[in-house]
């Protein structure tokens, strides 16, 4: 176990490893677009819809490797506890913004700040992956 990790950190590592370890196919999973998922009806935006369509048109190039998928929990467990909790609830458990605010007693604005910082770090953790895809 990682030195200096709190019980909460360890619990989160176990949680995230459990979530990740369920994909044993090793073939890489197909991207689930936010716009096409039934959970997402809060982004009625034309630019976003356009980006989503452009994406769907090239599924072969957009396969996500298990390596990229693996990097997400690896990054999340290193985040400060508040960011870690918010991104886990929002992006992994799929809670709504309102749901997370109620659960954690946060204002919508602070919730978004924490989520944004967390996603910045996850995105940075995936930079090699993005560079590879775009190259």
């Amino acid at each position, binding site marked *: 176990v990682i030195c200096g990790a709190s*019980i909460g950190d360890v619990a989160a590592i176990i949680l995230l490893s459990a979530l990740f370890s369920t994909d044993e196919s090793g073939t890489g999973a197909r991207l689930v677009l936010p716009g096409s998922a039934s959970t997402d009806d809060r982004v009625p935006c034309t*630019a976003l819809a356009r980006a989503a369509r452009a994406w769907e048109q090239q599924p072969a190039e957009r396969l996500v490797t298990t390596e990229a998928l693996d990097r997400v929990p690896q990054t999340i467990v290193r985040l400060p506890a508040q960011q870690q909790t918010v991104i886990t609830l929002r992006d992994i458990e799929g809670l709504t913004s309102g749901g997370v605010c109620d659960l954690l007693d946060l204002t919508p604005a602070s919730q978004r700040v924490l989520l944004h910082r967390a996603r910045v770090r996850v995105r940075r953790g995936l930079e090699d992956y993005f560079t590879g895809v775009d190259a």
Partner: protein
Amino acid sequence: VRLVRRRDVACREFVEMVTDYLDDALTERLRSAVDRHLAECPGSTSALEQWMVVISLGRQLGEHDVEAVDPAVREALLEAFRRARTEP
């Protein structure tokens, strides 16, 4: 509202707002400004796609077995959150 004219500044502003944008939390005018910027900026559109990848990767992790999230583990995560909050 218009994002600052200089392209690199506008792109940086966009990234700062992207979470609010995706949560549909921007004012109508600001959202229109972002839409206009995206319409003419391939770089920011590509950045938006990357943010969507980040989010969809999280979703994929969750979709595999959200039911398997142990309530005790979830509670530990919430407890870590509360502790971090009360620390100076």
